[in-house]
């Protein structure tokens, strides 16, 4: 999806008209470290546009700099701008946890975090957890215990686990249950999710 299409705002008509006027060649100001075909259509800088901001953040170890509408959520930023679709939109209201990612070591609902709020942050998503083909111990544990069925909530479950175990490396089961209670699993694989968290804790100690 072209950013020109996605980043529509009140002023975008003007922007498009401007583009049509042949200003494409100057469209490199809103740069990004990972070029995508979509970026070819990025408009010129709109520093004067108060509805847009430049966000810079590190996602899975890669630094990004992108100009986005202020209203862009972190979830939209990850899914639509960086095509990292592991985090899911389950409710868009911070009520299910399918969108959970780790921001500066904390698990957050990316659907109700603005991308601009994450400026300067270190963001970790499910895509950044494994090291090459080597799965992270949490992922190994979720496989070992079959801590999922349909898998739609799983990225969020795993990212909550990551932030939790980094914070509390040897939790009790009750601590783990409380920590995981912000992530709904409609298939209700809860027993297995809990087992996965506890096993992951042991694997991460090893």
């Amino acid at each position, binding site marked *: *999806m072209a950013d020109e*299409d*996605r*980043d*529509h*705002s009140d002023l*975008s*008509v003007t922007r*498009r008209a401007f583009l049509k006027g042949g200003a494409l060649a100057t469209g490199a100001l809103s740069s990004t470290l990972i070029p995508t075909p979509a970026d070819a259509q990025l408009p010129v800088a709109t520093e004067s546009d108060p509805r847009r901001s430049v966000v810079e953040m590190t996602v899975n170890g890669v630094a990004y700099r992108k100009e986005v*509408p202020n*209203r862009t959520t972190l979830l939209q930023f990850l*899914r639509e701008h960086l*095509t*990292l*679709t*592991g*985090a*899911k*939109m*389950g*409710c*868009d*209201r911070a*009520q*299910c946890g*399918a969108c959970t990612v780790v921001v500066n070591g904390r698990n957050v609902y990316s659907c109700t975090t603005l991308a601009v709020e994450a400026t300067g942050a270190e963001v970790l*998503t*499910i*895509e950044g*957890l494994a090291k090459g083909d080597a*799965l992270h111990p949490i*992922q190994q544990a*979720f*496989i070992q215990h*079959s801590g*999922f*069925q*349909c*898998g*739609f*909530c*799983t990225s969020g479950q*795993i990212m909550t686990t990551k932030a939790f175990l980094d914070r509390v490396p040897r939790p009790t*089961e009750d601590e783990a*249950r*409380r920590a*995981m*209670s*912000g*992530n*709904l*699993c*409609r*298939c*209700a*694989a*809860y*027993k*297995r999710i*809990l087992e996965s968290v506890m096993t992951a804790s042991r694997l991460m100690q090893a």
Partner: protein
Amino acid sequence: MAQQQNTTRTLRVIGGDGPVIDAVERVTGQAKYTGDLELPGMLVARVLRSPHAHARIAGIDTSRAEALPGVKAVVTHKDAAKVPIWGNRQRALNEQVRFAGEAVAAIAAVDEETAAKALPLIDVKYEVLPFVLDPEKALEPGAPQLFADGNLEGQPRVLIRGDVERGLAECDRVIERVYHTPTMWSGSMEPRAAIAQWEGNKLTVWASTQAPCRVQTNLTGQFNLPDSQVRVIASYVGGGFGTKSAAHVDETIAALLSRKARRPVKLQYSREEEILDSNTRFETRVYVKVGVKRDMTLHAMDVKAYINQGAYHVRLGGLGNQATHIYRIPHLRTVQYRVHTNVPNTGPTRGVGDPQETFAIDSALDEMAVEMGWDPVEFRLKNVKRNGDPIARGGSGAEDGRLVAQVTDRCLEEGAARIDWSRRSTLPGGGQTGPRARGLGVAVTERGNGGGLAGASVTVNLDGSVVVFYASTDIGTGSRTTLSMIAAETLGVPLASVRAVAGDTEVAPYDGGSYGNRTLYSTGRAVEAAARDCLDDILATAAPMLKASPAEVELGDAVVRVKADASRSLPLRDVMQRRGRSVVGDGSVTQSQAETNVERAAGAHFVEVEVDRETGKIRILRYVSAHDVGQPINVTVVENQIEGGTIQGLALTQAEELRFDARDGRCLNASFLDLKPPTMLDFDARRIEPIVIANIGEQGPYGAKGLGENPCHAGMAAVANAVYNAVGIRLRRVPFTRAEVLRALAEQRPASSRTA
């Protein structure tokens, strides 16, 4: 018959355990669900929904919306074919809207913000009509009418056996009760999503559906196309639970927009839309008369049920008449009124009407046991059907079939032993003093297995690797794994060499879909047949290479050998390379009610609860779910299904009721915050103990039975019965909120103490 061959061979793959074969994709974010897909030039769709529970669209002007830059297409009822959605009375977009939240128009635009901005620019003139939400009131004279032929769907569904009036008169004791379940949310974590793309006259739709072929059939009807011109793909599906088991309006709306805009269109429902415009679990009001003889036999049952079908209902629903399959009842009558009202769509949801029916029937039986001073387990064991008993094959009352491979009794016995049923107090409360009291409850469940037309194909490649193609889906039930295991077992190759392609109508033969305990049971039979077809071909190819006849060779561990002389063998890979052509096997099976032998899958649930008399809280201390699963294909998958389904059944006891404003008919709680599906803290899942009863069946692949639905059935009845045993209050309406428990406890106290 395949079954006989199976029993002579040791199983190598089937019966194992361990993770599903696509586990890595699911824990790394690589599994792509419909909403994750992007196509070049794709537009984003949004739907305008009716604020009125019942209205006629007197006029609709889309010109202002269409004029907004970035809007590429707007569709209304004028654009939709005058063809109902498959299995439904609803069209994709209707001139008369029948629930608050029904689609009125849709917009495709370059991005979500533009689409959202354009929605209010559509001018709709509604002629607001009176509405009705209550199914019994909807049948009264003068009630608002949803359809020209009235609110009653067809004729009342009647099932009669024996003479119920005479039967009741012959009973020593008859009780009469009413049980109520409300309209309930039953959706999944992944909201509905559909992407439509036209290439000339060829339509491709990626959909979050359980039944790609049903969606395909619907789209061929909507756009007057042959099957060959419509492809539906559902690769990864984020849960379904029945709500995605048929075609729905979203796929057609996406296709209408895409055709008009000449670009691909993605329509993703918000959570609120998913709650309002998917299928909800239908409300039931069940009037039960049960009669017994003094010798503990169940003699007569008279059931009258009102099914609130909402505005539209996918296929014909209602109670499944489970009681007639579970219990021997000489005199029986059930009458079901399926009524349209202005609550949102209903449709099949996990167990369809079985959880609601189990709540009514198994609560009533518990009440009878209490009245008569009988042990509830003993009472059930006395009356449950046993192997060889007559059973109805079809929807009529006639018991023209014979029940086989039935183990309801064993489920009851093993479950009772596990929870130590003998310690149950026969008196409510059992003399427990203090604010908290414990009690035990039981409920029995069962369901049929699959059915209808199932298809699959299997390809053995030149290197000996295997691909299974099937057009039902893996909605989280592990079917990619279990169907691959069936192919591996049948062919004689390791599971690691098999891959399954799920949910693509273009590459696999017709298959009804993944619902009603049927993917493993029915599609699994088709996979077995397709794999056997391949095996025959491979053995015929390999036999001359080994200077033997096809009957003299066998395939095992991916090696073809001469049975009598294992030294004469060829790896499958070599056979395939020398053959120089892939092997393609086809399997299509139709399981119908023509079979005289009827096999069903039984279950019994036992629960120990603790009721807090001061707060009204019901705590689950232990929950034992004993299920006949036939031959378990993958034990881990089986246990995961039982555990998850049990919690979904428990969820019905505490939350998930959809509430409606009596003034305007709008839903009051269309969000996760207000519906409260259970989190990890709401039920302690560690307290759920599955008992897997491996009771080899006759008609499923390798004797497997369906399981997806059953674990969700018995929670409401089992908990209600346990609460009675704990504190002596009878809960006849779900959900069992704390307020409801406290109200019942207050009523239980003598009037003098209440006023004191």
